[in-house]
């Protein structure tokens, strides 16, 4: 399965949802992915990295 396949599935999952429902879907997906991550230290590191992205896309740390 390619990135394009995954992205299409993600957009499909959001289809027809309101903003709050989409927000909740994203939150559930993040939690499922975190719980599924075999490498907990890596997951913790990615939380920090996701936070530290500047407006123009550069990392702030």
């Amino acid at each position, binding site marked *: 399965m390619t990135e*394009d396949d995954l*992205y299409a599935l993600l957009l499909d999952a959001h289809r027809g949802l309101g903003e709050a429902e*989409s927000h909740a879907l*994203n939150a559930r997906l993040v939690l499922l992915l975190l719980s599924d991550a075999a490498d907990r230290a890596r997951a913790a590191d990615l939380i920090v*990295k996701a936070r530290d992205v500047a407006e*123009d*896309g*550069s*990392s702030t740390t």
Partner: protein
Amino acid sequence: MAFDFAPLAMPDPPPVGRVPVVIVGAGPVGVTLAIDLAQRGVASVVLDAKDRVSNGSRAICWAKRTLEIFDRLGIGDRMLAKGVTWTVGRLFHGAKEVYAFDLLPEAGHKYPAFVNLQQYYVEHYLIERASDFPDLIDLRFHSSVTDHTDRGGHVVLRVEAPGGAYALEADYVIACDGSGSPIRKRMGLPFEGQSFDEHFLIADVEMAENPYASDAAERHFWFEPPFHPGESALLHKQPDDIWRIDLQLSPDADRQAEATEARVLPRLKAMLGDTPFRMDWLSVYRFRCARLDRFIHGRVIFAGDSAHVVSPFGARGGNGGVQDADNLGWKLAAVLDGAPGALLATYDEERGHAADENILNSSRATTFMTPKTPVERLLRTEVLRLSHDHAAIRPFINSGRLSKPASYEGLTLQGPPPAGTPLRDARIQTADGPRWLIEVVPGHACLLILGAPDVTVPPDLSVLRVAADGSPSEAVAIDIDSQTRARLGWDVAHLLRPDGHIAETLTSGDVAPALARLRVAQPVVAE
């Protein structure tokens, strides 16, 4: 030096009663098919209402596979010599470059991943090449098909030409008459799919100097650039100092107003800055992805845009159409020569599969470029922002998945996967000096034997052998730098279809069953 759009001087030809094939439309697909058929000894009449090659650059990116097909048809070298070869694409988000990619990092292929060349040059080369077959290709411009009737065993066409109207009969009619296909409309065939609301402006500008830092010919794509806020933009180099620019416009853009120089020039100046340029061509359009449910309707067969249309990001329209012609030519020639008509059904099966793949890829690219809802826009924005520093996210960015040849893997004519892919090119030493594999394979079925597989070869099948070392002879070529071994395996035999796709790969056993399948194949009809 811009292209000279001289009218094609076509003397009014004498009508002929009955021909094997009438091709309607003398664009790249129609004339490709006429040449392919002529090389197989099949005569065709090509009809086109226009009187010169197409105005505007239109299809400009010609993919490796298409160039390999054109090589077999005799215009590949011209395309390569005139076209702008590029392999590097750069992707920008805002003012910053996110990353660059190289489409063909591997040496040892005759043709690059892409050359850029205006469609009018391609049509011009094809028409010139067609004139090498005066007894087999009857190219008639100024000739409109105004009606046709499928009589079961043949089709009767009514043609209007400057010399008057006449009737023409054909065993098969191939509709290569474009996205607005009059033949498709006359038959009332549904042409369904997905439409997109956004407008796109395409402009060709003549510009002697490169407005960007790099001198190399590259594909540049921007999401939300400073010069065109919130939208996307594409820049491509063509020969003759012509540059293709695509600018996305909002869904509520006024198509008429946007297609005026007064509106376009400020947009281009914002992009190009102080670089002097001259407008060459412009068009504002909305696109859609759609296809016919079936490409074969009795004795009328659809190929190219008349059968399927895609959005342009990915260069899948022109390339897909040429590959239709490549797929249809040998099958049509075989059926006219007495092969079972069922062989034609594999054209529908294989190119229908290819059309689906092209439509899927181009509609996904368009979806990424034109987010429909706030959450789609949010996801895209974060893909782009993360991609600056997180390489693993970059494959999610979709600025067009560039045309790749469809594999016919798993379909009727092929043996077990991975058979179905087109032959990969490699350098080989022949008795005539170094050549390319794609140059030496014939346009008919043949067996490519690499090393020494334990296979039984049918007596009526032509054979090409490649050995690991030794001296080349008329019968045996020699692998260079193990390219053939690395790309195609060793001690194997590949049965090649006339279009160069691999029908079956064997390490041992009898080739005859695979060859028989290729000659009389009947696809399984899906319920």
